[in-house]
């Protein structure tokens, strides 16, 4: 396989709260983003998926560990190499109401990165290119949109502008952070389809961050999913394997808990009961596996003492990994009976 476009190696990220409290937001994250793939980061709020996306984009620096772009340490990139990284990796933020500057017209919003990265030579060229980008994201007729301000557009239209803005630098990797969660159901799929066709057209790699497993499944059917829990990746593998045959206890519980838009099916679905509904705080993480106090398959003396590493388990496809000691030892999971 060719070199991954982005490689994260042993990433830790902590945030300080006040003087004494350190919050470990990400711990020991190693993951490759392969060229042209779609990788979904899935998890509940507080699992660190957005922080991870920002680290990939270079908007945050890891506390320790390295991010490699095309094999080069991002922290050591200088001059034209750094600019190239910045151009090649773009992010689409979640909230189109907050991520567009209300004081700039759409034309300005799109022209700025075009000029900054010298994608065009003049204001008039920038405007031309902005118009092209707007028609690429189906905001037509372009003349009706280009001189408007964000507040004159609907949420769906704004998110299209955000996508167009990310396209200005002709990126190779797009980090889409909950890019459709703020728009209505009926137009969500339209946005995703547009993103997918842009990807084909422009040979892009996509990292899609979402809390919605069904959406991840739809988008990355031929891609991969990484499931995150409390700052760590607990399972990673091909989407079809993760969704149809989840391995990590957390992934299993999550999939069993999701209501589905099919009355008979969703009512017959068996829900796996957690041992505890409380999510531990990041500042008071339990010892061993962070999921053990809630895990229905908890193994005393193992799960509460040793932190599990992501590795392949005997029953898994060779390209998949899970962070669960009983599984990686090849043991059958058995319900814990206190």
């Amino acid at each position, binding site marked *: 396989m060719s070199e991954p476009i982005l490689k994260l190696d042993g990433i830790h990220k902590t945030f300080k709260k006040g003087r004494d409290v350190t919050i470990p937001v990400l711990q020991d994250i190693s993951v490759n983003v392969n060229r042209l793939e779609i990788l979904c980061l899935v998890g509940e709020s507080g699992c660190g998926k957005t922080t991870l996306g920002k680290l990939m984009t270079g908007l945050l620096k890891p506390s320790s560990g390295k991010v490699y772009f095309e094999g080069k340490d991002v922290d050591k990139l200088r001059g034209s190499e750094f600019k190239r990284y910045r151009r090649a990796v773009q992010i689409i933020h979640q909230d189109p109401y907050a991520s567009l500057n209300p004081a700039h017209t759409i034309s300005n919003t799109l022209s700025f990165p075009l000029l900054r990265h010298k994608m065009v030579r003049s204001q008039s060229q920038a405007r031309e290119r902005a118009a092209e980008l707007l028609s690429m994201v189906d905001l037509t007729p372009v003349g009706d949109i280009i001189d408007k301000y964000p507040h004159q557009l609907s949420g769906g*239209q704004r998110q299209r502008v955000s996508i167009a803005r990310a396209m200005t630098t002709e990126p190779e990797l797009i980090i889409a952070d909950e890019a459709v969660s703020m728009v209505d159901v009926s137009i969500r*799929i339209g946005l995703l389809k547009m993103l997918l066709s842009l990807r084909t057209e422009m040979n892009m790699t996509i990292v899609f961050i979402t809390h919605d497993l069904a959406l991840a499944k*739809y988008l990355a059917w031929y891609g991969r999913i990484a499931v995150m829990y409390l700052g760590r990746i607990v399972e990673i593998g091909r989407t079809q394997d993760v969704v149809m045959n989840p391995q990590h206890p957390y992934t299993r519980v999550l999939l069993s808990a999701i209501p589905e838009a099919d009355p008979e099916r969703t*009512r017959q679905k068996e829900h796996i009961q957690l041992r505890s*509904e409380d999510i531990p705080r990041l500042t008071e993480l339990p010892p061993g596996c962070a999921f053990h106090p809630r895990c229905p398959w908890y193994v005393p003396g193992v799960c509460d003492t040793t932190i599990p590493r992501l590795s392949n388990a005997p029953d898994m496809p060779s390209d998949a990994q899970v962070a669960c000691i009983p599984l990686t030892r090849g043991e059958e999971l058995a319900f814990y009976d206190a």
Partner: protein
Amino acid sequence: MAEQDVILEVDDISIVYQAERGDVRATNNVSLKLHKGEALALIGESGSGKTTLSLGLIRMLPSNARITSGKVMYTRDGKTRNVLDLSPGDLRYFRWHDCAMVFQGAQNAFNPVLRIRQQFMDTARSHGINDEQKVKARTLELFKLVRLDPERVYESYPHELSGGMKQRTLLALGVLLDPQVVILDEPTTALDILTQRAIIDVLNEMQQKLNFSIIFISHDLALAAEMADRVATMYAGQIVEIGPVNDIFYRPLHPYTLGLLRSVPRLDRGQEDLISIPGEPPDLISPPTGCKFHPRCQFASDKCRTDAPPLVEYAPRHFAACWHTDQVIAERDATLGAAPTFSGETPNV
């Protein structure tokens, strides 16, 4: 379901907001019946009028809103009254005793400087119940029902509770005075999947034990599929389809409902071809003529552009407002039931 079971009957209600740009017709000629012990889901996108409608039912609309027509007939113990005619005193009793509403965003519903116990007492007291022991007993019993540690939560401040615990506390507060109707606005939005699951389970249990009726507002089709007995699809301020949950999900008759169903990714299917509804929801200040959905509808004809279709009963208790249900049925049978690549294969959970 027998007519005498009807506890809330909304008849031809219209609600208008006065805005600078003109009148926003947020809810138009909506009629529906709510039966005893039933869960009715109002689904639709933002701006479809579902929250406005439910605020109208308890007369909690903001001051720039007017109810321009209609009645809300409420029945308790064989007596039927129009909620819109209630005196201020009667209205005060109606709210919470008869009909409680749990708003979106439980995080902000509690007063941060009062203990939970005080907030429950305040609610009871302001509705004329002063027996502290009785209120405490009822509160603790409800906490048990919503699977909270009763004594601990009773003495807590809101900030000591997690989001899911607050939402459950709020549900308990909602049913404190034993209402017949509980309106839930997006009860699980903004909650994590596992917390959401706990809330759904708790709600189902509560409803079975206390036998109240639920109107819940959601844009989440999966939640409606799981919790509702009947589902009403709202579009541009109108109910465009209403019927038993299985009819709506397996045999939809309105192109908008069909469009929603086809745009939701499903976990139980392999690679799917989802289809989004073209266009965007209409501006309710100058809505389209005829059927309000026609600019986005693949079946739209000249008739749709001029004449608004009435809600017609096509199957028992299953109503839809569309001139071309025959075409919707043909399309639905061709696409909705289309065998997915991995049909029948379920996640090995």
